[in-house]
């Protein structure tokens, strides 16, 4: 007896190449192609040293983009991340310069804690303005972008904020320049942050709720999910990721200015989109995001090593990449 068309076709379909979701694979294919191109352009490119360098330099964007994956998957957008990096990094340095704690190790630990709390609060502000204030995330975070950036300029009085204490600098330095089991610390941090994020997104109730809220808020609401809480928490996660990036950024230069983190929001969102996360929400791919961040840095690296294109064009190239990624993503929507 066949009631349904589907029923009469009951046999289990053979697994075939069709079952592979092209959108999930595409960023890794792009990465492989890019490595190939790089190797052809300059033989030094493919060396472990160079690649480890590229990965290390991609850390800031990669970590911020992991947070952006949550915000974007839940159907929102955070434009304030670049300004937030500058603001929180400035706050951190000012805190360390204040000398409220004499012991440098204790001081550093307090500063780390302070930074994490500051990141969470900045994210919370974005989340509450968007959800409680019922303001489009695009506008809300455009506003906070201006605020965070403006506060940074004010704190630095238009100049730079520099870490003064040499002793602190010395203890803190390995957080960016050190290695763990031969791997540069930033790479270890990327992997750790991504692994935690992937666990949250794919293996927890909250992660499932993020994707549900991103793909259809009504369905989520009718399923008893507190939509605004899920969205706000995603912004807080973004804030925490920004804080993590700041913790790597400060030991690298020991200084911030009003131009710190300029256009990082573009790079973070590009990394997310290149990684295969749908900008309209509903599908998060954390590892794809990391791949996207790496691709962005690789493109810059190839431009430096080759002499075809001026490296001053890098912003333009990154802008073009996000547009191309969107076009590719749309054409890869599965048409089974």
């Amino acid at each position, binding site marked *: *007896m*066949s*009631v*349904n*068309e*589907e*029923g*009469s*076709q*009951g046999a*289990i*379909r053979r697994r075939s190449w*069709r*079952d592979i979701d092209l959108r999930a694979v595409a960023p890794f294919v792009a990465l492989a192609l890019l490595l190939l191109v790089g190797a052809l352009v300059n033989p030094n490119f493919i060396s472990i040293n160079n690649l480890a360098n590229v990965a290390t330099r991609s850390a800031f964007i990669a970590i911020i983009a992991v947070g952006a994956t949550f915000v974007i998957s839940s159907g929102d957008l955070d434009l304030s991340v670049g300004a937030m990096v500058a603001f929180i990094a400035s706050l951190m340095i000012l805190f360390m310069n204040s000398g409220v704690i004499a012991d440098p190790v204790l001081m550093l630990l307090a500063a780390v804690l302070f930074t994490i709390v500051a990141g969470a609060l900045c994210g919370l502000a974005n989340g509450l303005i968007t959800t409680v204030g019922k303001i489009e995330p695009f506008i809300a975070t455009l506003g906070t972008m201006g605020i965070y950036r403006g506060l940074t300029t004010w704190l630095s009085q238009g100049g730079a904020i520099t870490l003064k204490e040499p002793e602190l600098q010395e203890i803190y330095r390995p957080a960016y320049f050190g290695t763990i089991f031969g791997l540069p610390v930033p790479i270890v941090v990327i992997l750790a942050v991504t692994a935690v994020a992937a666990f949250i997104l794919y*293996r*927890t*109730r*909250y992660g*499932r*709720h993020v*994707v*549900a809220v991103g*793909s*259809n808020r*009504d*369905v*989520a*609401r*009718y*399923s*008893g*999910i*507190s939509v605004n809480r899920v969205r706000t928490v995603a912004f807080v996660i973004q804030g925490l990721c920004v804080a993590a990036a700041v913790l790597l950024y400060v030991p690298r230069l020991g200084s911030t200015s009003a131009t710190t983190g300029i256009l990082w929001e573009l790079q973070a969102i590009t990394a997310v989109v290149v990684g295969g996360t749908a900008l309209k929400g*509903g*599908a998060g791919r954390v590892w794809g995001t990391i791949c996207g961040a790496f691709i962005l840095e690789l493109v810059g690296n190839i431009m430096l090593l080759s002499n075809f294109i001026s490296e001053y064009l890098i912003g333009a190239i990154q802008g073009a990449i996000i547009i191309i990624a969107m076009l590719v993503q749309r054409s890869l929507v599965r048409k*089974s």
Partner: protein
Amino acid sequence: MTTEVVDGAPVVLSARRISKSFSGVQVLFSVDFELRQGEIHALMGENGAGKSTLVKILSGFEQPTSGEILLDGQSVKLPANGAAEALGIVIIHQEFNLAEHLTVTESLFLGREVTRFGVLDRKFMRAETRRVLDLLGSHVDENAMIGSLSIAEKQMVEIAKAISRDARVVFMDEPTAVLSREETNFLFRLVRKLRDKGTSFVFVSHKLDEVMELTDRVTVLRDGQWIKTSPTSILDGEAIAQLMVGRELSSLYPAKSEPDFDEEVVLRVSSVSTGYVRDASFEVRRGEILGFSGMIGSGRTELMEAIVGLRPRVSGEVLVRGQPVSSGDVHAVNKAGLAYMTKDRKAKGLLLNAGMMANLTLQSLGRHSRLGYLDPGSEEAALVKARRRFDIRVRDDKIVAGRMSGGNQQKLLLAKVMETDPGIIIIDEPTRGIDVGTKQQIYHFISALARDGRSIIVVSSEMPEVIGLCSRVVVMREGHIAGILEGDEISEQEIMRYAAGLKRKTAA
């Protein structure tokens, strides 16, 4: 062709030996179909029988894999994406294609605006819109925003749009699914009037009584095959149902079982008011199936959403097993054992881009997690169990919900709600837009749940459904409970009297 001899009216549009496959799966097998000038032709079949695909092919939205389409006897290749409208072939979708922010006039002339010297001729377009609406006997204001119209009025605008484009062939996909009886009658009068002027209609519907009432001929499809085309007058509802299912339909509704008089009252709603609903009170006993009837817009869904916390209550109290539940907290209400199943499975019930498992467990992830960590094994087990229990059949285990048939979506939604293991389930329109076979199954599921000691509230615009399933029926009218009927009082006429305001009694 195997159809009856063509007598009288010429054939406008016909399909010969149409086959269609989607990525290797054949859904239509050499189907024949013909539509005469000035006839209303019903296209019937269960979900998945291939009706929608045939309609899409005949309106140019899909191209057949093989076979040909003839327009006025000439073989044609219909242009894609609605461009067939220029040939007079119009499709009125189940979900309307109207932009909420346009006015009625703007919608009617969308894409073919009339201009004078390059400037929009608003006056002419408004007058023309009024003319068409008057022709249809509709009171819809030509300057009204689409977003402010009721569903029936939106449908009217769609029809006006079709007429203003000189449609010769109009496809209507489940047009009455969202209409009340009165609105349906109005629509039918209109369709007959247009038919008499020579327009041809293809009427896709699951409602046998409406097909019997309205149509001139019926074509039945089953499993992608043409089964029969015949004048409606020589068939009866039972015969059509049998052709569709291909087997005898034993009783559509399971035997009713009434709860004992002294059964525990599990849900007590007292004097609940929202913006529209006023002072609604009723109670449900353990194991009872309580029906909610009334016109579209009588406030049934609003009341139910207020009860389960999806909508704030202005006043009133809801007691689940004697415990009050707070207003506006869906999660707490779910926890108390009260669940609501939406009538809008596509927009509010299921994540159409997600697979069956993500949908099934979305509302009950707590049951599959330890310290927030989700156990995939436990979820998979739940899916296997739910698919067996609710007979969810799919071709491909990884299918996304949006590609499942309406009947399977509805079963999945029911399974999802049941995953929270509620003692009281409110089911809003349990069988909207699904085929007879699946309807019967859903009725049996509901009945089995009641026998299991759960209480069910069935909100339905299909009166036979309420009458066939429920031991008591609450009738709502304009935000009030007009009456609660029991036993012999439950009949179409009696429900109608309360729903139309001819009779009313206060809640018992």
